[in-house]
């Protein structure tokens, strides 16, 4: 409970110091340019083993997954959208990023091992807010990729039946 309140206070401070007033990035409804880069850095880690290997297909898969992430956030309730914004604020503001994720550099500058270690820390954290953050990031990325027909060959899903 104490930690919950402390986290809320930190988040409130982050909002004050580093309000993300940036406009949505091109082709995106909600995510701004920094958030787009952050999600793009998470996608290959969350989806390791499920993305195509070929460079061009892989780049397209990552781009489309970020766009799907953005689309999914845009369909959430406004309070939930605010929470996602706060999550990206924590990840972009160096002091909170270091305190909450253990990453010294931004996600796109961190190594895949460092990003995976951060995700694992949040996944197994004793703080609910960090477990919730992990769930949000991983599930939004997984949801965005696995309904992209480009992912279906990897998982062996033939797609919906054709109606005669």
């Amino acid at each position, binding site marked *: 409970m104490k930690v919950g309140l402390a986290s809320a206070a930190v988040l409130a401070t982050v909002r004050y110091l580093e309000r993300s007033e940036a406009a949505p990035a091109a082709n995106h409804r909600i995510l701004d340019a920094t958030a787009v880069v952050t999600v793009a850095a998470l996608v290959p*880690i*969350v*989806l*390791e*083993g*499920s993305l195509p290997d070929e460079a061009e297909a892989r780049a397209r898969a990552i781009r489309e997954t970020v766009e*799907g992430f953005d*689309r*999914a956030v*845009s*369909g*959430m*309730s*406004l*309070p*939930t*959208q*605010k929470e996602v914004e706060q999550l990206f604020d924590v990840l972009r503001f160096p002091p909170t990023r270091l305190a909450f994720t253990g990453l010294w550099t931004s996600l796109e500058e961190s190594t895949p091992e460092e990003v*995976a270690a951060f*995700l694992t820390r949040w*996944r*197994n954290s004793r703080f*609910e807010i960090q*477990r*919730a953050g992990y*769930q*949000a990031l*991983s*599930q939004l990325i*997984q*949801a965005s*990729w*696995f*309904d*992209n027909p480009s*992912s*279906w060959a*990897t*998982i*062996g*899903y033939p797609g*919906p*039946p054709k*109606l*005669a």
Partner: protein
Amino acid sequence: MSVPDPIRDGLARGWKAIDAATLTADRELECDVAIIGSGAGGGVTAEILANAGLSVVILEEGPLVGSTEFRMREREAYPRLYQESAGRQTLDKAITILQGRCVGGGTTVNWTSSFRTPPRTLAHWNKAHGLDALTETALAPWFTRMEERLSIAPWGVPPNENNDILRRGLAKLGIAHGAIRRNVKGCGNLGYCGMGCPLNAKQSMLVTTIPAALDRGATLVHRARVTHLAAEGDRLVSCDAFGVERNGAVQSARRVRVRARHFVVAAGAINTPAILISSGIPDPNNLIGKRTFLHPTVVSGAAFPQKVEGYYGAPQTIYSDHFLDGAALDGPIGFKLEAPPVHPILAGITLPGFGREHARWMTHFPNLQVLIALMRDGFHADSPGGQVVIRSGWPVLDYPLNDYVWNGVRRAYLAMAEVQFAAGAQTVMPLHEGAQPVSSWREAKAAIEALTLRPLHARVVSAHVMGGCPMGSDPRNSVVNDSGRHHLVQNLSVHDASTFPTSVGANPQLTIYALAARHATALAASLKA
């Protein structure tokens, strides 16, 4: 062969349908009865009242979408047809709630499982909540009537492999089980019920009662979110709705005001209490939105040597009530076993882990078998359910998971793993962030006993939201009477699952249909008198 689309055809015939999101000016409507919500409760109510010759306006937050636009794609269906893009969650994010938000409500996207209210549940409602009129015998004609109306019957087609594994595992262990009756007519056994039936085979409100009411002259206002019920004295006079765009995330400034003699709220057990709370409906005992139940549901995945293809074929055709029937209602929580549809997004977000750990399950997607256990909450002092609260104008359910539920989660994981191994699973894993796949029932038993159960580690989902405006004979502990009429506000009724004093202990659609039919028939008689 092209499938007729009853929505497109109805609109062409001149149905009175208003898309509130596209209005360029405010509108005012007048009618005998305003019905808020077009799902199981609102749909049945609309048909019965319209058939009685009453003028009806149905208000629905979601869009009017017909079979032509049901393309069996999760990516299209979830944002369009579900609350919060199928990502609605409890306050602490520990439970994900699947709830419909479209014309037809949950019935447009549910998995067609049709059960009468279990007699033990009705007996408990009678004894603990004074609902003496709602006995098994008294409700039987209402069940029969709705079963006939919605073609609810045993389904004659063999179960898909995902369900047959449940059947074979249970049979091998000597555990009682049965076949689930379904509300379908001409079902193509496609398996995409959750994305809207492209064949109009599912007898949802979208293709049955709502078209019938519209053919009788009812008005449907869709993409309209009701925000307020206005009262004068002890009567309601009007309700206000605003257009919503972008899958519900954005509210427009255009208002639709509906004046009516009577108001039926059937917006589902999160939004119904939210509307009543936001409108300041009298609640002297502070009951509205409390005791909200979910059938908290946990999941077990298994890899089979053969293809399971849980994405094809009717979902949920086999069930077992063994772990409900064998348990005392007021003892440790009991659970129902079923086998859900397995599609890429649902599987992708429900399987725990990330990276290679996650990929090793997804890359065996056709061989993935999935069982769910739905827990019967609300019957025990330690099962008070959750509470609907309003946060920045949006309703959210605060449902803390406690040890009473976790005790059931562990027993459910054990039961599901045993069934899956009995049916020949190679590996089994409870869907929990701390679990690893194991290859024998003996190993599974030890691993599950050792698992730390806590929120946001165990995957907990719900597709059944119930309670928050409970029926009862005593106004001190209930909001509406056994006919769904509000105890204090003369012309307000509630006709959805929010009136349930506890969870049902079975998939709730048929309970909602039967009670709504009973309530609406009595309401029609009183309004015609």
